[in-house]
């Protein structure tokens, strides 16, 4: 008996052997062309929406960290008043902590390592955990990440702070994957060497909107390649209610599909 499966007929499903290698290549090149066209002419950044009423405001002293919960729809503005060289960030889906920030997917799915206004931070499940709704442009790195005892010796470091924050949620080092180091600019040259581009300007900031309920670990510790291995000033943050960002939701076809997956999770 034929069984009709509602829903599955809405997209023409592919399987491994459905198309020829040449047809799969043509599909990939079309996606790559679209990503390159977008990178060459990024969407115009509209003025940042006015921040809502501040629900919480805190300052993290040099070398320390916080473990906090964000609800879906809340945003955090993270500011770096003195230009300390980096702040380590990792986060989990509060409703299922096996879902967490995935650095590889975040860059691969968006075809770029440049994470700034309009881009989003993906989980390992093809869903959007956070949107970058505003950014002063200091650069954020998810390739090299936070410093560790390899750089700091006995000093406070990002790896241990993220593990401590994880522990406050009942999690362990199993649960801390590659992180993002905010306020950290790196670049690669034509030979493939990695360069650290110096400390960020004083007053750098980034606004991240929670697209799912989140557990957040935020550490005031430098980037792994910063020659200054101890934080030089505070990292401040405030939490406020933020409207969905149309810019982030529609920045790319990949973002659109990521939000389709995210919205379906809450539907």
């Amino acid at each position: 008996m034929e069984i009709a499966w509602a829903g599955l007929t809405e997209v023409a499903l592919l399987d491994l052997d459905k198309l020829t290698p040449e047809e799969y290549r043509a599909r990939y090149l079309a996606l790559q062309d679209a990503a390159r066209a977008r990178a060459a002419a990024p969407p115009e950044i509209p003025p940042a929406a006015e921040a809502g009423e501040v629900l919480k405001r805190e300052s993290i002293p040099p070398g320390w960290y916080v473990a906090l919960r964000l609800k879906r729809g809340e945003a955090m503005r993270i500011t770096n008043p003195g230009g300390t060289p980096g702040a380590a960030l990792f986060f989990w889906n509060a409703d299922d902590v096996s879902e967490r920030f995935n650095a590889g997917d975040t860059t691969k799915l968006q075809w770029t390592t440049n994470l700034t206004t309009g881009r989003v931070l993906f989980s390992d499940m093809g869903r959007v955990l956070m949107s970058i709704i505003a950014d002063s442009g200091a650069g954020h790195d998810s390739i090299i990440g936070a410093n560790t005892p390899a750089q700091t010796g006995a000093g406070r470091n990002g790896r241990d702070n993220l593990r401590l924050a994880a522990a406050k949620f009942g999690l362990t080092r199993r649960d801390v994957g590659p992180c993002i180091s905010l306020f950290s600019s790196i670049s690669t040259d034509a030979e493939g060497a990695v360069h650290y581009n110096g400390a960020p300007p004083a007053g750098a900031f980034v606004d991240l909107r929670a697209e799912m309920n989140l557990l957040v670990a935020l550490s005031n510790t430098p980037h792994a390649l910063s020659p200054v291995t101890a934080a030089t000033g505070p990292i401040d943050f405030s939490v406020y209610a933020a409207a969905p960002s149309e810019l982030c939701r529609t920045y790319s076809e990949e973002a659109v599909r990521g939000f389709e997956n995210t919205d379906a999770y809450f539907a």
Partner: protein
Amino acid sequence: MSVISDITVPARAPYSATLKAGQTMRIIDLESQQAVDALFYNAHDVTERYSAQDTLAAQAAAGGKFYLETGAVLLSNEARPMMTITADTCGFHDTCAGACSCESNTVRFGHETRFMHSCRENFLNELGKYGMGKRDLVSNVNFFMNVPIRPNGELTVDDGVSEPGGYVDLRAEMDVLVLISNCPQVNNPCNGFRPTPIRIVISA
């Protein structure tokens, strides 16, 4: 050198083995352009595992690159050496782009790719045999996978550069559990759009 194990892993299939310190694993790309995704765990405490960021931070600080080649030392999340690349015919192995999954495929290649086999399906099946799960599916190495990060920040998957019979040798620096997914992806060039078998030889 005596051969302990010599196995051909079919296209799209997983594989795992435990190496004793000092043993060498040779991964052979039999037909060329075949990505081989790999995870590494301390065989005696699997919460110590391969860390791409620790590895690249140490490598970059020493003037090295964002990818892996001969001489690269794969570090754990405790910054301890797990494996060393002692020989390599390819010259470029990725550790930035992660492993493909059904879910990420929907984002990158469209919802029509949701029900296609992927590396993370292979890894989850194999992790389960060792009492591990998705929490343990962390950063990996993609041997023979060509993922340039260009000076303008672009990250793509380009055509593989490995030749038929190309290989990489990995010497275990501690007792290491190695999990491998012979990548089934056909939506990008990492397998030449045609997944093929690989051969894995462990020697002591």
